[in-house]
């Protein structure tokens, strides 16, 4: 340890030498995750390797009065893994990446939280199994992070979010106690912890469900001359009883950006919307399901329809979707990805309004989204160096989230609240709602030292004295206030 260490002694002694770093470069590179707006260099970064080491660290933090934030690969899009503040210890789980057990018959894997999502599926592949949740970051993001955020992904339309695949977990709670939670019927504390964004404790083990890998996959690409038609096709597919593995739409600007980039997938230029549908399962299942899908698509006068089960061709069709984020990132130096949800029946109307907001705020705005569950990802591309542009982008983002809530939706479908959307919570929740959320949190972490400032505003009085927050919730909730 350097002599001029700023670390309290208990923390310094909590891990073997060399596994807590506090040099300037280390502190700097951990100052934020994949959401760039708030940056806080941590006090130091710790690299534990076991549940016991995490517990020792957390207890040392408590003893020293220091807050902590856990982080996996730092791919969170809402600041969940950004250090809570300059006096916060960052607990990095990258060295906790082992598979502790993998049982093919029971289809259960127990892993450490630093394991990368895709690398669990890779390990399960020889048994014909995989881990279903597939956030776009799955090649990098860790399972601990996936659980903390309750990550989604294109295939969660059919298979459910991360929470539907968790059987149990081990948590070092806010008081430094090791808490093993199993998910039997009855009180589901485990389900409560999934999606709590690290504010209940630090995950140290995850017991996960693996599912059989489908033997047949078929991908369809349909392009339409209007976004409304694409959305109607989606509604028809969903109401036919067919449950595609994925239903994704790209809008005109996204198509153009993708086709101009290295991810060019041959999407028809001039189309207003491209719809990707994927069916998976057993051969005859997919064969049976393609008929209602084609019928739905054909009834909306598509410009072009392509269908393939060839792995290379499928990869090509998906390339544009998967590269869209990167392609948009190159349009302007800054990219701000939103994560609103609306009821699927309101997609077309909401998208039209979103386009209008982009035009009013003069911000380059494109949409790539999970159409099946109404999870929108408007991408705002801007150049923060131009005066006023960042502010306009933020204002557009705020208005879009408000719009989603007014349509009966939500401010986040899979990216989490983190730092990013705390101020937007009031669109959804009343002060009492937030007060209850705070109480639940303090059952796990009474002193609020676990990743403070995320999900809920800082401080015990959250929701109570903040007159800025609008009392009551949505009028559309039909809840009369006493």
């Amino acid at each position: 340890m350097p002599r001029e260490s700023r670390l309290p002694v208990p923390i310094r002694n909590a891990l073997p030498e060399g596994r807590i770093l506090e040099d300037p470069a280390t502190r700097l590179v951990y100052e934020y995750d994949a959401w760039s707006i708030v940056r806080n260099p941590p006090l130091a970064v710790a690299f534990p390797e076991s549940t016991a080491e995490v517990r020792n660290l957390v207890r040392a933090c408590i003893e020293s009065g220091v807050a902590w934030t856990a982080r996996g690969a730092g791919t969170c899009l809402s600041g969940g893994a950004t250090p809570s503040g300059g006096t916060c210890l960052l607990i990095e789980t990258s060295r906790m990446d082992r598979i502790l057990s993998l049982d093919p018959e029971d289809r259960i894997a127990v892993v450490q939280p630093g394991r990368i999502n895709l690398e669990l599926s890779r390990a399960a592949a020889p048994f014909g199994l995989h881990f279903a949740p597939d956030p776009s970051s799955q090649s990098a993001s860790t399972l601990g992070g996936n659980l903390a955020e309750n990550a989604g992904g294109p295939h969660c339309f059919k298979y459910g979010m991360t929470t539907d695949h968790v059987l149990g977990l081990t948590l070092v709670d806010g008081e430094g106690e090791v808490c093993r939670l199993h998910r039997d019927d009855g009180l589901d504390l485990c389900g409560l912890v999934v999606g709590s964004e690290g504010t209940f404790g630090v995950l140290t083990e995850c017991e996960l469900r693996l599912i059989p890998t489908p033997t047949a996959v078929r991908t369809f690409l349909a392009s339409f001359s209007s976004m409304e038609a694409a959305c109607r096709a989606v509604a028809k597919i969903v109401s036919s009883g067919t449950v595609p593995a994925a239903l994704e739409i790209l809008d005109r600007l996204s198509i153009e950006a993708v086709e101009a980039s290295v991810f060019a997938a041959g999407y028809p230029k001039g189309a207003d919307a491209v719809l990707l549908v994927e069916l998976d399962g057993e051969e005859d299942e997919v064969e049976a399901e393609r008929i209602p899908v084609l019928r739905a698509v054909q009834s909306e006068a598509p410009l072009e329809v392509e269908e393939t089960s060839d792995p290379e061709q499928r990869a090509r069709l998906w390339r544009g979707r998967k590269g869209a984020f990167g392609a948009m990132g190159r349009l302007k130096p800054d990219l701000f990805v939103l994560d609103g949800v609306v009821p699927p029946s309101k997609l077309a109307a909401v998208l039209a309004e979103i386009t209008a907001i982009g035009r009013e705020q003069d911000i380059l705005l494109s949409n790539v989204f999970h159409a099946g569950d109404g999870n929108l990802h408007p991408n705002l591309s801007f150049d923060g160096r131009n005066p006023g542009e960042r502010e306009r982008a933020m204002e557009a983002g705020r208005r879009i989230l408000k719009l989603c809530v007014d349509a009966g939706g939500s401010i986040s479908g899979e990216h989490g609240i983190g730092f990013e959307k705390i101020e937007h919570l009031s669109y959804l929740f009343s002060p009492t709602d937030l007060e209850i959320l705070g109480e639940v949190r303090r059952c796990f972490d009474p002193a609020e030292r676990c990743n403070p400032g995320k999900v809920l505003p800082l401080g015990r009085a959250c929701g109570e004295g903040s007159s800025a927050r609008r009392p009551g919730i949505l009028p559309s909730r039909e809840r009369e206030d006493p």
Partner: protein
Amino acid sequence: MTSPLFPGDPVELADLLKEGAAQGRKAFVAGRDSRAGFGADPGPIDLRLRLERMTGFLRFSPEDLTCSLGPGTTLGEFEETLSEEGLAFAPGPFHGCRERTLGGLLAESPPNPRGFDRAHLRSQCLGFEAVDGRGRRFAAGGRVVKNVAGYDLMKLFVGSGGALMAVTRLELRLIALPPVILCLRSDWLPPLEAAGVWRKLRRRLPTPSWLDLVLDGGRACVELGLAGAASHVTELARGSGLRTVAEGLEAWRGGGGTEIPAGGEVRGRVRPSEVGSFLESLGGNARGRIHYQGAFGLEVGYPDSLPPAFRGPPSLEPAAAKIALRLKDRLGGILAPGRLSFRIPRPLPERGRRVR
């Protein structure tokens, strides 16, 4: 026994609970109280509330596959309306539960054949409005199928046994009714033999609608539910070696199966690979069902014969129990004081720490 009160809306319910809390009473909120006497004893109660007046659809959006319900709506009327629209509720079949309220069903969260993965009861609740044990009205979640705003309090409600809150409005996820549904059964077999068939089908069928090992004392059978496109379902049925006993809506609602219902009082989860030794430990003494992923609900003749892990209230480690008790205290307030009981195993000595 105090006579029950029937609040007609959330405000009344909140006022009653607030008042009760101020007077130091002990309250129990039920749907229609059809499950009185089941589950952990709620303890001495002097304020009984029933939500059967808060009933019916408050919102119905078939195009989005969601709806809002009063908690007093019965499963029977709910499923009736859905099937008229070609829709369905993913979990089930809940045998003999048509008169039960949805609020009660979710609060209890009994094991059921289809209730695994995404079709688990706890994944159906997208949001709610509720009153806690101090009379505070609050809401959580939302109306859309994908939503991570705020903590997932829906998980806290489903399976809480009415000990943490009383729900006044439920937001539920629906699915389109599958075009073809079949229920198939094996013959009655010796339990271990049936378990062999069950395990083999379990390996062969990646996505059945349900696959139960049905126990009836000294005999057992396998019940398989298939749902989906016609050609696929027929193909699977043919390959299963079981015979079809019900089709369509009847099969979906649990008709044509055995008389053995899901949701028995002794509950837990057994690893499918260990089902053989589990059956042996039961010694032909149980009636009930073991579902696809090993969750079970059984009626057991001599509970003392059960392996200790499955006897009595669930066991919760001290740290988890501490959190559960805090939730009970802060949120639950005066609600069902006896519910949420669990065994707390003796804490292990903390090795790592001591040695240092």
